[in-house]
């Protein structure tokens, strides 16, 4: 093919042979682009069922960008453009960009580790530091999350690699621990039987693994308990609502009051004190008892 760009003058460009050559190069570039699109489509379909979504995305992107670069380079070569200076300039620019973007390079390497380690997949709910969201995409530089209040969050891969990461939806079932404090005068056997009944009657709590009920410590306000129930990961909100409602109702029916912070206020002179105790009934006024 004619090297039309070697002599960039108007006569050369208007030469019918040169015009035909340019059209031919454009034609083959378009064909190459279409072939590349088909290739990417086929690769995506082939990988779709064989590997994870993030690997599919990375491979197709790599093929796409490599193919585009090859089409551009071949087209320029066919048009007679000498690529050596361009590649040389690209090398210098690449070096400069590389030095200026060490953080990005770090993100890329971290991204490769993330892809190989597979700590989570697209669609998983993860927690990184204080950030919780659904993984939307896993790219070479960053992971994109959608938070539950519908915010788009971009987390650099380097940050993920360096911080503790929790994949909340990794396993099909989870346990949620309710922290309860019951007053010291409550019958713990009754409390335990109520909690067991709540778990057994709940449609959202799993029968197995069995719920755990553990007295943790003698606290300031009463005995601190841990009530852990297992559930399917998709039922988190519904289970929490159902069990919380049931705890309040069943404890109320049994006359067991969950402990809450109480304040005793002492008042009076040096020879006589008064203590003010809060009364939990809605209409009652604070009761004042003289202290001997």
């Amino acid at each position, binding site marked *: 093919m004619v090297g039309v760009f070697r002599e960039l003058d108007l006569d050369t460009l208007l030469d019918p042979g040169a015009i035909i050559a340019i059209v031919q190069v454009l034609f083959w570039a378009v064909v190459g682009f279409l072939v590349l699109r088909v290739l990417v489509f086929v690769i995506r379909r082939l990988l779709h069922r064989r590997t994870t979504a993030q690997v599919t995305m990375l491979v197709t992107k790599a093929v796409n960008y490599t193919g585009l670069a090859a089409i551009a380079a071949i087209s320029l070569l066919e048009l007679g453009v000498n690529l050596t200076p361009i590649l040389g300039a690209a090398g210098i620019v690449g070096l400069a960009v590389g030095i200026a973007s060490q953080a990005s390079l770090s993100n890329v390497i971290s991204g490769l580790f993330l892809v190989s380690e597979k700590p989570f997949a697209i669609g998983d709910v993860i927690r990184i530091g204080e950030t919780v969201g659904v993984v939307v995409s896993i790219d070479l530089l960053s992971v994109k999350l959608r938070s539950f209040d519908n915010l788009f969050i971009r987390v650099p891969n380097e940050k993920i690699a360096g911080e503790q990461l929790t994949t909340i939806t990794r396993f099909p079932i989870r346990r949620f621990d309710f922290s309860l404090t019951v007053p010291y005068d409550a019958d713990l056997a009754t409390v335990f039987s109520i909690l067991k009944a709540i778990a057994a009657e709940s449609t959202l709590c*799993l029968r197995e693994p069995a719920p755990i009920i553990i007295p943790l410590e003698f606290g300031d306000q009463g005995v601190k308990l841990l009530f852990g129930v297992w559930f399917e990961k998709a039922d988190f909100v519904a289970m929490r609502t159902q069990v919380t409602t049931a705890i309040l109702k069943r404890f109320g029916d049994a006359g067991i009051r969950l402990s809450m912070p109480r304040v005793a206020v002492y008042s009076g002179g040096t020879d006589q004190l008064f203590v003010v105790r809060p009364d939990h009934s809605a209409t009652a006024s604070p009761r004042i008892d003289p202290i001997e």
Partner: protein
Amino acid sequence: MDPELWGQLTIPDDGHIVRCIGDAVIRARTLDDEWEIARSYLDSHSDEDASDGSAEAQIAWTRFVTVRNDTLTLKPGLPDRPVVVRPESPIVILPGRWGRFFVSIPLWIRFVSGAAGKDTVMEEVPSTVLPSTWFGDIGTGELCYALDVPLRRDVDPVADPGVATCEVRVTNGSKERLRFERICVHAEHMRLYLADGRLWTNEVRVVFRGTDQVSQLTFRNGPPERHPSGVVVCEPRVAPESSLIKRSFTLFREITGF
């Protein structure tokens, strides 16, 4: 199979029909080119006996667009997950011995549209709301339904139209005692058969090889041995393999003290 419950529904003009299968109360009515279906459960908060019309107003109908003069058929199906059943007390099978057990599996109700001679499942609901449970190790187990009805040694004499009976034959092929307190039945791999007026599943055969070996679980192809003339009513959701190796027992060795 009770024809009063299952089969094609005949719905009166300007009204709806009600079917009670298991704990489920099914309502269906037709309007122009739609089927409207509602379901509730007897132990739910809905007041099934309300006669003042309030219950009627609370019914949540789901509308399915089909064609005019479509047919609606109720067909039985099996659960979409394995079911876990416990005997009333732990069972021990001695080495070289075998035992026959029966599991009553609540059915799923399929609403099938028969437009243009082609059956289309519009919706599928459980006849009884089954609680979920986990069977196996916490890391490698699987999500199942828990059955409240215990494992039986004989067939329930009362044929409940809302359940299918599954015969499980357990053979202890090891040299140790097999002690188990629950068994997992993979209902999603089973066929439903109609025989002797009740619904049966494939027979399941489990061979226990030892504590450190996986149990061999086989779905016998065809109707139960005791009812060879059984007719297939429902195909399995997931095609069973001829010899499926699955963990089917939780073994509690006495030595562990559990």
